[in-house]
């Protein structure tokens, strides 16, 4: 299972837990900030997140991926607080190895089913396979452009605000005045126009954001 671990160097026992999880066959990726964890979740499949810090922020930002907290020593008060905050599991240094691994396994079972693909008409973006296709034909996009397309396609024709698009793809808040989203949408739009043409368009809602729309099929009366 794919596990992301945030803040491994910040608490006693965390590094040992990472080693145990790896020995048990989990793929563990260590990150240093909530933003990095969000990015990891957007670019690859993540079955569970374990955090030493910023767990509540992660819970808020990673959608339906289960989040656990690591406490170096057992504290029933702290564990109750964290669970009440909405965290899915609390792991602590008082647990034996078998219990820890069983709890992480139970946590990963709560991860959403791995569909990972989004469609809009003949457009399909498959996060697991890392590709976007139009009528089954692969579109040559960079990973970043594919992520932008995925977020726009997920909205199913609704306008996605530039700030929301930035947060979803880059994993951070967009600084006011930053034109990163616009530059990437422009490049994506040019590539889509060249590869697909008129049937698929990224429309601009000035000062708000972008939406991905399919043109109505042209019906010719005979």
């Amino acid at each position, binding site marked *: 299972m794919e596990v992301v671990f945030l803040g491994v160097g910040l608490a006693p026992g965390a590094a040992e837990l990472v080693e145990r999880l790896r020995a048990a066959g989990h793929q563990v990726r260590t990150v240093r900030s909530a933003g990095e964890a969000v990015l990891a979740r957007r670019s690859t499949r993540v079955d569970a997140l374990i955090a030493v810090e910023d767990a509540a922020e992660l819970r808020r930002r990673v959608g339906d991926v289960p989040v656990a907290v690591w406490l170096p020593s057992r504290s029933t008060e702290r564990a109750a607080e964290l669970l009440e905050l909405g965290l899915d599991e609390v792991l602590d240094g008082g647990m034996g190895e078998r219990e820890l691994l069983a709890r992480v396994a139970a946590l990963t079972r709560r991860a959403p089913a791995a569909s990972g693909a989004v469609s809009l008409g003949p457009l399909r973006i498959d996060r697991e396979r890392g590709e976007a296709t139009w009528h089954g034909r692969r579109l040559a996009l960079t990973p970043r452009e594919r992520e932008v397309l995925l977020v726009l396609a997920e909205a199913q024709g609704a306008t996605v605000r530039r700030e929301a698009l930035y947060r979803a793809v880059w994993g951070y808040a967009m600084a006011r*005045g*930053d034109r990163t989203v616009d530059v990437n949408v422009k490049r994506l739009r040019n590539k889509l126009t060249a590869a697909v043409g008129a049937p698929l368009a990224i429309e601009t809602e000035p000062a708000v954001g972008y939406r991905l729309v399919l043109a109505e099929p042209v019906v010719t009366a005979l």
Partner: protein
Amino acid sequence: MRLALVPRTSEFYELFAAAGRNAHEAARLTEIRFREIPDASIPHARVKELETEGDRITRELFELLNTQYVTPFDREDIYGLARAVDDVVDHVDEASDLLDLYKIEAPMDQAVAQCRVLVGAAAQLERALGSLRGFRGVQEAIVEIKRLEDEGDRISRDALASLFEDEEVSPRTMIRWKDVFEALEQAIDACETAAHSVGNIALKNA
């Protein structure tokens, strides 16, 4: 070194006018770069060439100063002004270089606004440096540079504030743009310093 007794004062005026044109052009190309990234039609090498040209003009001014017995203004004023104009181009070059060094991938509205102010100030500096013989229009140019510098200050403050409005802005974004905003502000400030030198010379000689 022998001092020449036959005055070559017109060369001073020509070199200062060339330095002004050079600074204005460096600012103009840098503004294009900031507006067009990541597909800028102007590579940093073009700005660097102007920085090198600015150094050459400054060197020539110093050489002329060292060989001339008669100079149009006080020696230390000529020296100070030449250095001040050279500083403008150096700061412009630094800001332009940061775009590549920090691998900046998209424009930032506030930086583009700073660049517009910088180009305006550099245009006025060119006008002032081109008018040292007789000082016609120099005062107006200096007043306009001061006004632009005030506007630049406001934009710079707002630009810095924009990086700290949301605590979830990426640290990478903050580090990159804070340095760029500061480099552009220094370039605008350098225009004002140069304008101040021109103002002093005008006051003594007009």
